[in-house]
């Protein structure tokens, strides 16, 4: 792993974002729309129901923000790769002394930076608009944030591997993959609220203990270590499997001689 190469690849994306402000708009716009729509819905529900719903807004907006972290991390990886495909730059990278791990790491960093921007914007708006202070979510949530980001990276690598395997026709997977799993990872409801048969499936994904843990931390104010360890353990497995999948697909593409076709089409 060479830090210089990773930073050079990240620099490329920084140039890109600084040159095309529209990309920033995309980073800020959708989270804002989500936040305002669901923020208002939550306020509406709160006004029209009894006091039991008191903490609802907190859970809901918290879930929104965390889901966005997952989504942005995944996007950071998948979109960074697609940028290289769209601009026919992939071949330049593949003939440069860039290791796969360095390439992937640079996309992780881009994912992290995207999250940073989204987070700042969303917490500001939810604070101003809905008096929801993200910092009342407690510092205990930080390890959950980090785990969510790592799971986002893993999903990003899986999306990228699928795109590499099936070509640009599969590009929409870059946006779709996180939503495939959204129904089963209990973003907005608890595992026990799911149909009994689907509950074991939920626990296969690191995002489930993260969202469960988040709710517990917010409810009790103390750390939910079991959820955290489970999430971290699953993440190690996912990250390794996703990395392996990416390398496997990359080698397959080399073997079939499709890498250059893919990179120049």
């Amino acid at each position, binding site marked *: 792993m060479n830090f*210089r*190469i990773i*930073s*050079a*690849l990240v*620099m*490329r994306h920084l*140039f*890109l974002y600084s*040159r*095309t402000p529209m990309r920033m708009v995309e980073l800020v716009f959708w989270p804002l729309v989500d936040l305002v729509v669901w923020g208002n819905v939550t306020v509406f529900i709160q006004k029209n129901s009894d006091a039991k719903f008191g903490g609802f807004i907190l859970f809901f907006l918290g879930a929104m923000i965390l889901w966005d972290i997952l989504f942005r991390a995944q996007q950071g990886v998948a979109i960074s790769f697609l*940028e*290289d495909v769209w*601009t*026919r*730059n992939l*071949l*330049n*990278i*593949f*003939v*440069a*002394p*860039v*290791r796969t791990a360095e390439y992937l790491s640079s996309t992780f960093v881009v994912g992290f930076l995207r999250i940073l921007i989204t987070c700042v914007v969303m917490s500001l708006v939810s604070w101003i608009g809905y008096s929801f202070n993200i910092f009342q979510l407690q510092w205990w949530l930080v390890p959950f944030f980090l785990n969510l980001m790592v799971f986002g990276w893993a999903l990003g690598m899986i999306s990228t591997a699928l795109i590499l395997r099936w070509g640009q026709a599969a590009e929409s997977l870059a946006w779709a993959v996180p939503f495939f799993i959204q129904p089963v990872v209990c973003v907005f409801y608890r595992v026990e609220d799911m149909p009994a048969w689907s509950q074991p499936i939920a626990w296969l994904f690191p995002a489930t203990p993260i969202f469960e843990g988040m709710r517990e931390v917010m409810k009790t104010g103390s750390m939910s270590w079991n959820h955290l360890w489970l999430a971290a353990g699953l993440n190690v497995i996912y990250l390794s499997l996703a990395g392996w999948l990416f390398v496997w697909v990359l*080698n397959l593409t*080399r*073997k079939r*001689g499709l*890498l*250059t076709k893919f*990179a*120049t089409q």
Partner: protein
Amino acid sequence: MSAPDTREVILEARELTREFDGVKALDRFSFKLHRGEVLGLLGANGAGKTTAMNCLLGLTLPTSGELTAFGLPLQANRIKILQRSNFSSAYTALPGNLLVWQNLLVFARIYGVPNPKKKIAELLELLEIPHLQKRVTGQLSAGESTRVNLCKAFLNDPELLMLDEPTASLDPDIADKVRKVVRKVQRERSIAILYTSHNMRDIEEVCDRVIFLHKGKIVREGTPSDIVAQSSSDNLEDVFIKIARDGEILDEPKKDSAV
């Protein structure tokens, strides 16, 4: 004929074969490229030139055969070898949404070029395009972006350079300039270059030695003038046409004679 080349072997292929769906794009292709030598790969469309280059860059895995660069087996030493090599072709581009200097700076950092800004300025000067520095890469003309690509290819002072049709889509004037620059830098730094082109003028001016490929097999090898001298034609272009057509006649069964 000519005495064996005693210079260091930079790149070597032994019995390189690459099949696509049972069809051999390269068929037991062997060659050596020496330090300071420019080797041209010639052949009709589909002869296997790009496939050869892709295998030599590690982008495509060969079906069989051995590849070494700087004396090292290619696959196991890809990163080390790529650090000392570079590549440019008419069909790749640098990211169109960045400025020229931004793209060059990114690649200079990737290759670990010491004092990148100075190096970039030198190369832009060399290719006579300092005025393009602040332009958006995607808005350049084909010829301009070819020269920017060449800048990228020279960034790391490569000892081995692969150029796939570097002069495609250039006007005769710019093509001539590009050839001269490539030749100049190549001589100064003793770079080994593998070069493909459909422009025989290119080949005659730039290449020390050429290999004619036909359906993945070597059908002629030698200096451009030797090859012309050994044939009944009086220029390389005619030799090319002959090989492309004769090869075709020999290989294809005459199934359409009844039509």
